């Protein structure tokens, strides 16, 4: 085998290994959990946590991302968006919704909704029932979510968002309306109401 062939094969395996290293699932045990030194939360049950280096969010799930998840976003600064990667369908960076720390409570909800729509994960996505909500000591809002994906699967959920030191903190829970929303709603409510910004 020539040297070039050997180099090629070794490089190929190295690329494969490096790809794998980016995607990690870790087990979250019940109790108090610190998330990336950004949030502190309490959970009564086990979750699988998924985090990929290039995304500015991580999520917890039990049965899988498409069935139920709690998503924790890293804090956003002015000009940033919830999804920084280029959507496959909308590679128009200039049209990406961007955060502005002067947004009022309604505009934060509007921004959150626009970002999820921009990501094109759901074919319909609506937020309703906006209420005042405190994330720890941080003033913010909560609202309900209704969504549907391309296959016609219905989802329900809720989100909390708030601004602290000009940065946007956001967390949401979403699950399939059939089966999983009702099963994990109470647990998700308890987790989200226990969130403190560190």
């Amino acid at each position, binding site marked *: 085998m020539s040297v070039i062939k050997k180099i090629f094969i070794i490089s190929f395996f190295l690329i494969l290994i490096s790809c794998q290293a980016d995607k990690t699932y870790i087990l979250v045990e019940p109790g108090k959990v610190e998330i990336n030194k950004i949030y502190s939360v309490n959970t009564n049950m086990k979750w699988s946590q998924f985090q990929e280096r290039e995304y500015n969010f991580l999520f917890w799930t039990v049965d899988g991302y498409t069935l139920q998840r709690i998503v924790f976003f890293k804090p956003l600064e002015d000009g940033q968006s919830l999804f920084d990667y280029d959507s496959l369908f909308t590679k128009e960076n200039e049209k990406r919704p961007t955060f502005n720390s002067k947004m009022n409570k*309604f505009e934060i909800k509007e921004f959150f909704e626009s970002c999820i729509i921009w990501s094109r994960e759901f*074919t*319909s996505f609506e937020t309703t029932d906006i209420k005042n909500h405190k994330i720890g000591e941080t003033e913010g809002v909560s609202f309900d979510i209704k969504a549907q994906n391309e296959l*016609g699967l219905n989802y329900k959920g809720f989100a909390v968002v708030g601004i602290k030191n000009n940065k946007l903190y956001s967390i949401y829970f979403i699950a399939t309306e059939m089966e999983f929303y009702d099963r994990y709603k109470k647990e998700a409510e308890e987790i989200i109401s226990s969130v403190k910004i560190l």
Partner: protein
Amino acid sequence: MKKIFLFIIIFLGSCATPIGGAKKVEDIKPQETPSIESIEAGLWMQMNNYEEKLKTSGSRLKDKDLEKYLKNILCKLTIEYCKDIRVYVQDIPYFNAFMAPNGMMVVWTGLLLRAQNEAQLAAVIGHEAGHYIKRHSLKSWLDAKSRTDLMAILAIGLSVGGIPGAGDIFNVTQLLQAGFMAKHSRDNEREADKVGLNFLINAEYDPGEAPKIWENIIKEMELGEANKPLSFLASHPAPEERIKNLKKQTKEYENIKNKKNTKELKEKIHPHLKKWIKNEIRLKNKPEQTEFVLEKTFEDKKNDYLLKFYKGEIYRLIGVKEEENNYDKAIDYYDESIKAKNDFPDVYRELGLLQLKIEKNEEAKKNLKKYLKLSKNPQDAAIIESYLN
């Protein structure tokens, strides 16, 4: 690898044998279905699969009444083909409609927002029905093959041929969305226009509305980003030429006052209007372009307060950009909305919240209080009150 490639080409060549590139394609007859061994049957099969998915897709608008209304327009245009064509509405905020060879017609909500009356909508539906009757998808396929466009043949052949796994690479959805199946030659477009126009005249719609919808689209395109044509235009060539032809053909009918049915269309789309406008604004097109779309939507002037309110929304959402303060423009439009109708609650809420942002606190509080008074215990009262205290 070379052998596989050669096999695919031979396979595709054999697929085309029953019809052959040069053979004349007749119009499809009412209630006709293609023979099972034909290429057309393969196209139908793929489209039937796509249609099954579309029926339960989350992107299909949940409004059977609106789909029934569009189907009725189609049946007014052509009773003969009424049974053969199914009309679906997809909730996508761009101007587009397309016709699949199996009789599946899809209209996007962006087109419904832009049609000013039923006659304009009928012009598009009639045009798309023309593509079906004249079998333009099959003609395009054969034309692509006769030009030995290797990539096109591979793309379509792999989808139609049903080679396992290949459909994932070039699936029919992608083909449709890329406009390939809907992309027709200029001759096909002219032919579909002619069929559509005859339908329009026979159904006693105002034929003068047919060129108008295209004129509006051209104007909108000019106001927007010139290098990004609207999706429909990406697959339908030369709107200027189309307008010229349509005007020429409708000249002899210009003194006939046929129906436009503006009210009928507006009533049907009314339940969705707020959401569609919000989605239109969210596209972040150039503000002049969005303003133009809204002006056409509210052209009857009956709801001028809404036109002004939504124009205000365009500029509020842009905010401060490149040293241009759009908040002042937004406030001007909100004020005009109030002048047109002084008891529309939403405008007081948006105006008040915007005034808070630019620290006009006294005026802001006055407007937010007015919002609470007019909307009578709104669901967001607690949040508004948090801004008042």
